[in-house]
């Protein structure tokens, strides 16, 4: 009875706390601008099934894909066991499904055990790869400190989880004369030979509780970790942009302004901007100017660095790393979220301070923005080659925020690489990227001579 009450209280606390954190992430994502995600829902579901469920993009690199798949499959399948753990925990019954399912029960748990062994092997290999072999894409500057720890913590948690599962099952088997017949733990149970029934029971309980506690710890750890991708990969692939990669988002405000300048507006409607009004800001200065999808991308990032490892700028030693762009957006969104939660009126925009009663995303200004995280040098190094977009296993688009920030720099700040000015001027004045002393078709006239 005490165990049941303890389980109930711990579950409510753990799930409640996790829910609160997940809602905060949802709020942070929605700090971004609205973006209509159009397109065909059949194709979206296909993405979810192939890319998120089937991990199709992972299989561009076979070896990590297979090991990752072991961990992933074990994780998904173990959730079935979790159903029973919850029922057992709340009712105090031991192995609720065993009497009714019998042989099928043995099959399911055996399946989980085999996957757990595979996941164990994979986890050890991943630990070696990160800490001993030091795969280059995990050693970039943005991976120093917390991101590296984060990756290791989750791998250790995984090991604990698997150890607890086998502790529980093997002790349980030993105390029930191996009647369950689980595929792996039947070979482990002999280590308990000679142990008293009470020791076996204690071991089984430690295994059970250990398993439960790791699961709850994991649930509460997810929101501050790159491992959030195990959940967000699904919505993120569903909401992935469907239009052509080659299309930069149109800016209708500017299009209409230019149309009216060129006298192209039909029916003479007033498309001119009101020149007395506050000058509008274009592009993205902070997370508020990105779309919610850009921020969802950032929270979905697995920090795998596949994007960075194919980025021509990064390969040739430039500062730009597409993964870092995503990590920066996420860190900034989280920082803003924490500040908003503080309710501290110091974070209200200067000109609104006097009348503000409450801190909201509309009057928020902490004197910082995305440019404090992402330097112009990084933005300027991008060739828009889309290699990062192609490489990402969860369909993140690292290029989109880079281009939005470039727009801010050029259109709102009127800054940017000075070498671009002659190109802009040439297009504006002579309709070509270079100012040329000859006519556009002079090559043709030479041919005719």
């Amino acid at each position: 009875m005490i165990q049941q009450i303890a389980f109930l209280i711990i579950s409510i606390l753990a799930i409640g706390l996790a829910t609160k954190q997940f809602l905060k992430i949802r709020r942070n994502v929605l700090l971004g601008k609205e973006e209509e995600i159009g397109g065909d829902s059949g194709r979206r579901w296909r993405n979810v099934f192939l890319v998120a469920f089937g991990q199709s993009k992972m299989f561009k690199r076979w070896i990590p894909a297979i090991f990752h798949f072991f961990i992933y499959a074990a994780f998904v399948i173990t959730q079935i066991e979790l159903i029973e753990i919850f029922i057992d925990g709340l009712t105090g019954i031991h192995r609720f499904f065993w009497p009714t399912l019998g042989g099928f029960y043995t099959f399911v748990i055996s399946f989980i055990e085999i996957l757990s062994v595979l996941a164990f092997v994979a986890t050890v290999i991943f630990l070696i790869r990160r800490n001993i072999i030091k795969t280059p894409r995990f050693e970039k500057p943005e991976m120093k400190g917390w991101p590296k720890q984060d990756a290791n913590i989750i791998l250790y948690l995984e090991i604990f989880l698997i150890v607890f599962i086998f502790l529980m099952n093997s002790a349980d088997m030993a105390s029930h004369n191996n009647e369950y017949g689980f595929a792996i733990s039947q070979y482990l149970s002999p280590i308990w030979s000679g142990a008293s029934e009470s020791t076996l029971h204690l071991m089984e309980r430690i295994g059970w509780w250990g398993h439960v506690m790791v699961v709850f710890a994991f649930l509460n750890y997810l929101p501050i970790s790159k491992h959030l991708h195990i959940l967000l990969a699904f919505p993120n692939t569903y909401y992935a942009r469907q239009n052509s990669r080659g299309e930069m988002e149109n800016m209708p405000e500017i299009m209409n302004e230019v149309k009216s300048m060129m006298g192209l507006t039909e029916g003479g409607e007033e498309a001119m901007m009101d020149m007395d009004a506050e000058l509008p800001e274009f592009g993205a200065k902070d997370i508020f100017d990105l779309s919610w999808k850009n921020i969802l991308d950032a929270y979905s990032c697995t920090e795998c660095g596949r994007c960075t490892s194919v980025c021509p700028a990064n390969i040739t030693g430039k500062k730009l790393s597409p993964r870092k762009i995503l990590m920066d957006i996420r860190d900034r969104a989280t920082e803003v979220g924490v500040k908003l939660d503080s309710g501290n009126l110091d974070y209200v925009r200067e000109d609104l301070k006097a009348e503000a009663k409450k801190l909201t995303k509309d009057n928020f200004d902490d004197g910082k923005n995305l440019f404090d995280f992402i330097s112009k040098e990084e933005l300027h190094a991008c060739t828009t080659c889309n290699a990062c977009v192609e490489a990402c296993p969860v369909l993140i688009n690292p290029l989109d925020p880079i281009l939005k920030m470039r727009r801010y720099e050029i259109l709102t700040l009127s800054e940017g690489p000075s070498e671009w000015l002659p190109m802009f001027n040439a297009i504006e004045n002579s309709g070509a990227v270079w100012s040329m002393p000859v006519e556009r078709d002079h090559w043709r006239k030479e041919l005719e001579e």
Partner: protein
Amino acid sequence: MKVPTMAELAAEGRSPEILFWVGCAGSFDSRAQKVTIAFCKILNAVGMDYAILGNEESCTGDPARRAGNEFIFQMSALQNIEVLNGYEIKKIVTACPHCFNTIKNEYPALGGNYEVIHHTQLLQELIDQGRIKMKEGGAFEGKKITYHDSCYLGRINGVYEAPRKVLEALDNELVEMKRCRTKGLCCGAGGAQMFKEDEPGDKRINIERVEEALDTKAEIIAANCPFCITMMQDGVKGKDKQEDVMVYDLAELIVNNNGL
């Protein structure tokens, strides 16, 4: 050789089957002009009913837009669309993947809807239809050629096979670089990089790419983009290999092979 303009044809009350969009590089860059001329030679040889815009053509606006300058992009793009719609253009071919991408994918949102193909696609079509016949024992028979996928034709628009089919027709040995097709490495020119110095780093991107091309031991690097050609040629020079390795556009390869 005569290359007709839309205005000339319109004066005769005619409109061609297809518009050849030349682009800034194809018009002004001395290296890219050679590609333009090669392509026109092919069009003339097969008797294609085509025209160019001549002085009525402007920059598509691609580099300005990617640099972040939407105003300049819109000005240039809207002006082009005015001209194209004025001539009621239906179909466009271009030898520049940036022009190809912008007109195909970005002009529709601004009111310009056309069928757009890249010249390598047209070349493949002409070969398939038997309108271009490759001379046997041409200059490239048995030679090792490697093909550089431009980002804007390959990864961004998914055209990988048409240019390779054209190369196959030339009867040479196509050797792929390690990073090809969806994994192709950028030449370093896109996103308006063409118009500025590289950011600080260890290496220029075109050098990285040319090293990979040289590793294939190919004598010819085939490309489909005027900016890639510039970048690759500079890279080959940087590696002091300009005597051994040539960089060509696919249209040039056909012209050389057939002695057009």
